[in-house]
């Protein structure tokens, strides 16, 4: 089982990650992303453990977007703007956003996040467990898509356009996924999900006082750093 490596409530980590992302989203300078990248890495180390190899690989791949934006600004700078400076800022901003988001995704078990939504934010179990089932189906979809495309290719004798073949496969996969959803829904209904007025859970994701403290500190540090950057004149905000 892919158990969670997070030490805090997934919603608390989400909240703190959000606090750290907001200033980066607004910044057009080079200092703010670097500061919040460092804070984000510290948060990641404190909130749990992440597979470094997987993390670097994912961030590395997704950073391609940042590199593209950098080149775009350097090669085609806007009038009156230092293209290199702007390119570096945009690269740092997008890479920091990617790094913090990927860190959160790899840190938190999606099942724990859904559990936390059900337990702490009153997400109806019907929806929560449907999300569980949806998450379960992702690896099955990949497996089924491989089988479907293979079966279709053999059926058509290896001829036909790849894109059309992909579309045909996708339609079959989608129809199968709908049927799968109907069956899972029937199975949940057979076990009384709709009659559950006072549902209990054997595995609970509690919101503890430690999560509250963690959120307060996270907010304090993020807000403090943001204010400091604004006061020092390092933070640059631009529209467009």
């Amino acid at each position, binding site marked *: 089982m892919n158990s969670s490596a997070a030490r805090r409530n997934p919603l608390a980590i989400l909240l703190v990650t959000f606090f750290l992302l907001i200033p980066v989203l607004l910044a057009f300078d080079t200092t703010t992303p670097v500061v919040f990248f460092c804070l984000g890495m510290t948060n990641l180390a404190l909130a749990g*453990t992440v597979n470094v190899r997987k993390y670097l690989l994912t961030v590395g791949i997704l950073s391609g977007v940042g590199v593209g934006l950098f080149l775009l600004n350097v090669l085609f700078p806007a009038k009156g703007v230092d293209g290199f400076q702007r390119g570096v800022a945009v690269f740092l901003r997008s890479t920091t956003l990617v790094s913090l988001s990927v860190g959160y995704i790899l840190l938190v078990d999606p099942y724990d996040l859904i559990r936390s939504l059900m337990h702490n934010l009153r997400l109806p179990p019907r929806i929560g467990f449907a999300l569980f089932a949806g998450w379960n189906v992702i690896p099955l979809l990949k497996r089924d898509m491989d089988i479907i495309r293979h079966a279709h290719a053999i059926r058509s004798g290896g001829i036909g356009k790849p894109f059309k073949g992909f579309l045909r496969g996708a339609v079959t996969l989608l129809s199968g996924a709908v049927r799968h959803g109907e069956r899972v829904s*029937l199975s949940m209904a057979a076990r009384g999900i709709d009659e559950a007025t006072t549902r209990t859970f054997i595995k609970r994701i509690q919101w503890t006082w430690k999560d509250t403290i963690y959120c307060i500190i996270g907010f304090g540090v993020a807000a403090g750093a943001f204010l400091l950057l604004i006061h020092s004149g390092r933070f640059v905000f631009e529209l467009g």
Partner: protein
Amino acid sequence: MNPLIRLKQVGFRYRGAKAPILRGVDLTVRRGDRILLRGRSGSGKSTLLLILAGLAPEYVAGELSGEREILYHRRGVVLQNPEAQVVTPTVEEEVAFALENQGKEPLWIRRRVRETLEALGIAYLSGRHPLSLSGGECQRVSLAAALAMEPEVLFLDEPTSYLDEESSQRFFQALDLLPPETAIVVVEHRLEAASRVCQKAYQVQEDGSLLESDFTPDLVESISFGGELPEAMGRGGNASILLKDPVELKARMRGTDLADTAMGPVLWVAGLSHRWFTRNGNGYGFERNTQSSTELFHDLHLTVGAGEIVALLGPSGAGKTTLLGKISGRLPVEKGKVFIQGKDITTLSKQTFYSLFMLIPQNPEHMFLAETVREELSVVQKDLARAGEGSEMRIERMTERFGLAHRLDAHPFRLSEGEKRRLNLAVAFRVRRPLYLLDEPTYGLDEYAKSLLRKDLRSLTEAGAGVLFVTHDRAFAEKTAHTVYTMKEGQLVREEKRELVCCPA
């Protein structure tokens, strides 16, 4: 004994269907009753089970007529497909799911779950993800989830159709754990297994009515086809020949296009091996991920001649589907060789390779690509016309031949399991290939549908094609195949050389 369910003149019509699937059904289920519901694929027995379980029309779009009285409070339901019943990420939570819905105290639930898993001998699976289990294990988890509720009635809808013989025996043995007052209603094609549990049987008739029945299998061997053999399949062949030896058949087929190209065996697997890799580590933290490998099978040798049907048996996880994956190119051939019509498959272009065989996957839905049965057959017609192959048989005649004439405008996904399989075969018949590979072709089929499948496969071989199918169904394999192999501990054991008498035209 107290009645738990009463049905009086009950009928059911699916939304959009012209005719009701069930009509005039009278049935009373009492405490302690053990009832088998039988009938042909698509006859409505699963629908009847859902009505009894209080799930149709509540969760199945359709219209219920007549009177239904449900007097039980706790039910357990196990459906056909183990994968489609999994909701939670651990076996423990899966078994606890219904009890949590009832609002039971978590500590009590944990104790109850542990007891149930121990009683079924699967306590060691408690922390695993249900989807990481084998089909047999996964279905026993579904049974555990149903038993944990201490149901008054247990509903089982073909619970062993995805399981091998051993797993299905273990599944039915597990029902011995139930107290005698628990009623069981089961839909099952494996009559021998069901008769171990049930005292009464009811047959859903073709007109949708219900009749008390016994446990004797259908007289299926005398069934004859309504239509003729497709022209292309019958070309040069003679449906009434006695198929004693594939070599003899090949000699008789000489002069036909399929036989002429078959200089050696249609399929020759030489020294094929397969290893699978598992990643160690939980994927988190700073530990290094490492891989370890296990040999699934080693140095396999297998031949399928023109006009020969070969069956491959073996328990779940033995590597049967993997072997098909390697032959059909879905998995790479790392060690050993695979030849189709004397050609090494690793040297062929994709187009040449795929034109040499036809694969019918385990899940019949995976082959579908259109909105209706008619379109399904038209699509293949267009593809084949472009490739200059395929039979010229009209769609109407084809569907009549495969008993699908009345479902021409139905969505392929809405067909019964048996009908889906027959549509797969209709498509397969339209594309003439020297080799046919079938993965678990009898899943979800009743004895009648199996007998039709048997005849279809024989028709293919009469035209000179070779057939290799993997199955858990020993009885079907023995009745259908010339050669039966069993896959055990990574090796193929040839069981016997059979002489089959081909079905009369």
